């Protein structure tokens, strides 16, 4: 055994982690070598020094903070560990946390809207750096204080921000979400719209409302948020660093590379590293969501209506301004209202998020499904979102087309040309993006893309979608809170 080998074994010897043979070899060399004994003594001393480091006690309010968050409806990520539920409901418990993520996505996008962006940046940072469970409440407070203080500021941009209608953030309890999802008898599919009865405080009056959620793919949402923030070059006032950490800082290039294990905790750790997403839900596609049936049951059937499952063409959605609608399943693009939201009885409702055309950055998405027979640790998602210089797009597209269809899905989106193109022989890939917005220009742009998407979707689109679902054993979803329909609408029962 070489000197180097023995050196490396010293630590393991110290820790009692050697085999009997290795231990014998080390002890024999220790007896022979004074230098080795000195090294061993030094390592032992280092070990003791670390063990003797003071370990601060938890702050006095540590435990009470946890218990308060458990008791707080919005904060509690589930209704508790003891409640019996269907097998798939272990996922549903996470949905309530995902609601908070959805709220954050909405708030984040609103805060990045140009007119009030600078004025609200501090609040966004404050909310983002707060403990996850406090974010929604803090953001509420931040909005209130922003609205109150803005008129007294001389900054014209602040005045513009103050002139915007306030954003109402409605707290929906996890129990309400959970109950609704339980009623569905299965996990909601991507693109589903779910209505949850809730209440909104108006002064001292509690008004019944219906909160509409759209199920989106968390990876899609995250990538789009990263692209948006990168394009807006939103940076922290304190550190001047981008609020969301991208792997490349070049403002002209946005690269988000995720290598996501199918192992839940690791995937959660990565996704939860994005400030705008603090909870995710995993769905086993093979057992929970029928691969060939990615869409919800007939949304207009009495049964679906009784569950509060709504299609996006329902009147309630057509009339209300939709801040951002992200349908990550291409098949749902056609469900997006084909016209700009028309002012109806809900016209005075706030439109918290302005045009989301920023989302539509030219980008290539590549998804490489895991090896079918790979071990759990080998089964990793390789999901990349790449935005690249114009001159390299064509080449990249060619490269993407060369990938075997059964092994990858690609999608090109182009905003300026108002077109959405899919790779040959493929449908609009899951992850396709559509926006519904109150901004006429952006609506036109989004509508143009939707039209093109319809035209280019080949007849075999559903099969392609099924292939996609088959190839991905797990997906992560969040609920994106879409809007808060008005009090005049009776809650769905």
């Amino acid at each position, binding site marked *: 055994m070489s000197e180097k080998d023995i050196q490396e074994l010293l630590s393991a010897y110290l820790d009692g982690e050697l085999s009997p043979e290795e231990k014998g070899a080390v002890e024999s060399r220790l007896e022979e070598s004074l230098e080795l004994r000195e090294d061993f003594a030094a390592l032992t001393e*280092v070990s003791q*020094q670390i063990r003797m480091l*003071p370990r*601060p006690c938890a702050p006095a309010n540590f435990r009470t903070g946890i218990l308060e968050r*458990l008791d707080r409806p919005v904060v509690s990520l589930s209704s*508790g560990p003891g409640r019996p539920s269907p097998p798939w409901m*272990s996922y549903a418990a996470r949905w309530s946390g995902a609601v908070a993520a959805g709220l954050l996505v909405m708030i984040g996008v609103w805060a990045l809207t140009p007119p009030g962006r600078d004025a609200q940046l501090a609040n966004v940072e404050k909310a983002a750096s707060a403990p996850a469970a406090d974010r929604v409440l803090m953001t509420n407070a931040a909005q209130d204080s922003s609205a109150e203080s803005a008129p007294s500021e001389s900054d014209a941009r602040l005045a513009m921000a103050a002139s915007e209608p306030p954003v109402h953030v409605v707290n929906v309890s996890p129990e309400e979400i959970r109950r609704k999802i339980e009623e569905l008898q299965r996990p909601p599919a991507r693109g589903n719209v779910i209505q949850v009865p809730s209440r909104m405080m108006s002064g001292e009056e509690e008004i019944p409302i219906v909160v509409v959620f759209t199920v989106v793919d968390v990876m899609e949402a995250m990538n789009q948020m990263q692209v948006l923030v990168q394009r807006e070059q939103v940076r922290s006032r304190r550190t001047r660093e981008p609020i969301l*950490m991208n792997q490349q800082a070049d403002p002209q290039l946005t690269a988000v590379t995720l290598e996501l294990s199918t192992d839940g905790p690791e995937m959660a750790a990565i996704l939860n590293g994005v*400030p705008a997403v603090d909870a995710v839900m995993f769905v086993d596609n093979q057992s929970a969501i029928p691969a060939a049936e990615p869409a919800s049951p007939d949304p207009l059937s009495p049964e679906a209506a009784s569950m509060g499952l709504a299609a996006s063409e329902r009147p309630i959605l057509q009339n209300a301004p939709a801040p951002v609608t992200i349908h990550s399943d291409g098949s749902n693009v056609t469900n997006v209202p084909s016209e700009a939201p028309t002012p109806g009885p809900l016209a005075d409702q706030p439109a918290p998020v302005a045009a989301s055309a920023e989302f539509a950055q030219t980008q290539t998405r590549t998804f490489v499904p895991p090896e079918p027979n790979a071990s759990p640790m080998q089964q990793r998602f390789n999901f990349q979102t790449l935005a690249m210089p114009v001159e390299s797009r064509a080449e990249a597209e060619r490269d993407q087309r060369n990938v075997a269809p059964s092994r990858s899905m690609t999608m090109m989106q182009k905003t300026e040309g108002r077109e959405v193109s899919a790779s040959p022989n493929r449908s609009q890939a899951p992850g396709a993006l559509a926006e519904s917005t109150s901004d006429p220009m952006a609506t036109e742009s989004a509508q143009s893309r939707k039209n093109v998407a319809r035209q280019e979707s080949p007849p075999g689109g559903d099969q392609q979608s099924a292939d996609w679902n088959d190839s991905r054993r797990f997906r992560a979803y969040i609920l994106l809170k879409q809007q808060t329909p008005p009090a005049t609408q009776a809650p769905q029962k």
Partner: protein
Amino acid sequence: MTSDDSRLIEAALTGNRDAFGELVLKYQDRLYGTLVHLLGSADDARDVGQDAFLLAYQKLRTFRQESSFYVWLFRIAYHAAISSRRRKNRPKLSLDEARERAGIEPEDERAHSDPERGLQVEEAQHQVQQALAELSPEFRDVIIFKEMEGLAYEEIALLVDCPIGTVRSRIHRARQLLREKLTKAMEREQK
């Protein structure tokens, strides 16, 4: 897995939040104390620690009691700590500040009787903390798991998702680096 923990977990699973509160009380100091060193920030350690307990509460039904509750909790906390590192948005509160806030001082009985000796101990600990903080996470994590949590190499390998051989070499390398840093610090002090 102690019978006490089992009893508290069973009670928490029936909806008894006070029972879960007892579990928090039992392990909060140990977890927080390690997280402070892992993250180098008292604020981050508090947030990550609280999030870990909340996540543990959520997932309590999935805990099969094959390992101790603390080891299970620590795994959750470590993954949360990785997430926290990725954010890195706020200025760190140093360990010294954390101790100041919590009113914790180095536990050395001799320090009470000999103020000078107390200062020396504190200075030495500061140097070790500094050296530890300067290590890259791949070395810092494993040495903390070993020295502060007393985890076996096999447990560490599972936690950081790498072979045992890698854990062994990282721990050794971490100790070597710490030794070098501490030697240099002592030399600077003597000059």
